[in-house]
């Protein structure tokens, strides 16, 4: 696995020097949603760091993810993504910001009629003509996660575990500025879960802000960076775990 190639830092978002404060990739200020799943949440995801949100089922973690990935609006408070106020975005700008976000959903939306490699490359296809390097990187990530990329079968035939790993490969290969992982290890074998976590930790080193949402308290506590707790749509102030 050539991790250094897969997640090589980009020129425009290389990690800042030690001691230099990074601007948050995403920031919520007293944000609430109309369905009440988020209530006056203030929260930020620093670039180049892991941020974990722990909470039981129904705490509002997925709603938080939806707001940050621009799939859900806040009706009160503010929401900034990469320094832009998301309340004032037009549809085109919203789409362009989404391309900087990788999302690993609990139930990933894959293109069932396409092969695994076509799914992994789909986000890049929306942005540019694919290069050989893109295809090689995508294949490396997928192979690292134990996916057979030479398999031309549609992913509709994949198992649940394979689909989840494919969603991880797609999000990581996209090399996003903000990577949101909603229960990234749920339903995976320990070995596969370990590899997924390793990839996520690796991503932050290239400047990606990584947000992990989980109801697994042990997993949340084991992650370096801020740990937020969430219940009934309300966030508690973070504790900090030293980077390992």
């Amino acid at each position, binding site marked *: 696995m050539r991790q250094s190639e897969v997640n090589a830092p980009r020129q425009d978002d290389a990690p800042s020097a030690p001691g230099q404060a990074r601007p948050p990739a995403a920031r919520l200020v007293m944000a609430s949603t109309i369905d009440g799943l988020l209530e006056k949440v203030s929260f930020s995801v620093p670039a180049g760091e892991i941020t974990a949100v722990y909470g039981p089922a129904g705490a509002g973690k997925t709603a938080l993810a939806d707001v940050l*990935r621009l799939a*859900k*609006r806040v009706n009160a408070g503010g929401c900034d993504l990469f320094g832009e106020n998301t309340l004032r975005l037009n549809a085109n700008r919203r*789409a362009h*910001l989404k391309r900087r976000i990788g999302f690993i959903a609990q139930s990933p939306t*894959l293109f069932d009629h*396409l092969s695994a490699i076509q799914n992994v490359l*789909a986000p890049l296809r*929306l942005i540019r003509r694919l290069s050989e390097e893109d295809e090689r990187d995508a294949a490396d990530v997928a192979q690292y996660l134990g996916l057979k990329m030479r398999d031309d079968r549609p992913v509709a035939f994949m198992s649940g575990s394979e689909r989840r790993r494919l969603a991880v490969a797609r999000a990581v290969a996209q090399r996003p500025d903000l990577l949101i992982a909603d229960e990234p290890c749920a339903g995976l074998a320990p070995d596969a879960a370990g590899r997924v976590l390793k990839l996520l930790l690796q991503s932050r080193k290239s400047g990606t802000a990584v947000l992990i949402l989980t109801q697994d308290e042990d997993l949340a506590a084991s992650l370096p960076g801020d740990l937020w707790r969430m219940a009934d749509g309300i966030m508690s102030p973070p504790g900090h775990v030293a980077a390992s």
Partner: protein
Amino acid sequence: MIPVPRPAGGRALFWLTVTACVFAAGAAFAALLALRGAQLAEMDSRSAVIVRVLAPDDAAAVARAAEIAQQTQGVVSAEAMSPARAATLLRQFGMAPPEEPLPALRLVEVETDGSSATPGALADNLLGAGLQAELIRGPSSSVAQRATANVRVAAFGGAGAALLAAAFIVTFAGAARGASGAATMAQGLVDLGATRGQVMGVFGGEAASAGFIAGLTAAATVVAGLVALRLHGPDPALALLIARMTPIEYAPLAAAPVVAALLGGLGARAAADAAFTRAAVKP
């Protein structure tokens, strides 16, 4: 661009589009044939005159009338109508001639150059020669002209209605094609950051390709039908009309694939636009 899934009922939608294109191209082509036929009939009605000799009541008067007609300016040909010719005409108009021989007729079949002055000059010449005669069928009768005008209006009205109906069918088939795929795929594209234009382009492009192929299939079907009609059609006059069609009159066939592609693509884009709006942002 990202390939779209094969739409549910895609084959049925394809053949629906082919059928609509055949319907539209066939209607347009039939309208052109009717127009051509009407033009020929109108020209024929303008140039054909039948003279009935009333007095004197003998064969010599009929021969004399034919001779005078031949000498009249603007007359192309004039001939006394024989019983055999009368029987042929009766058959052409769908009537069976009587079994016993027809009596000698006092008719002269005249073909003019179509000029409106010719029948008047012919009547004057006949009168001047002491012959009483009437022009039974000629350009002064506007019935034929009205009939051909009505045929023209009916042909174009019918073809217009058929084209409009076919346009709706092809557009809605495209929309159904787009909606079928968009329902499952638009959300995924939107989540990855596809713009409205990209989502519309993905589905519009696929439906336009399908529409183009359907239009080509339809054009080929209509051409095959025309060839069959020309070679084995029941009416030699129809075969002759088809043979006389000019390249410009084949335009509806050439346009069918392009129009089907445009309409199918537009329908699918509209469906994808709606799917994008639904998928873009939850409340």
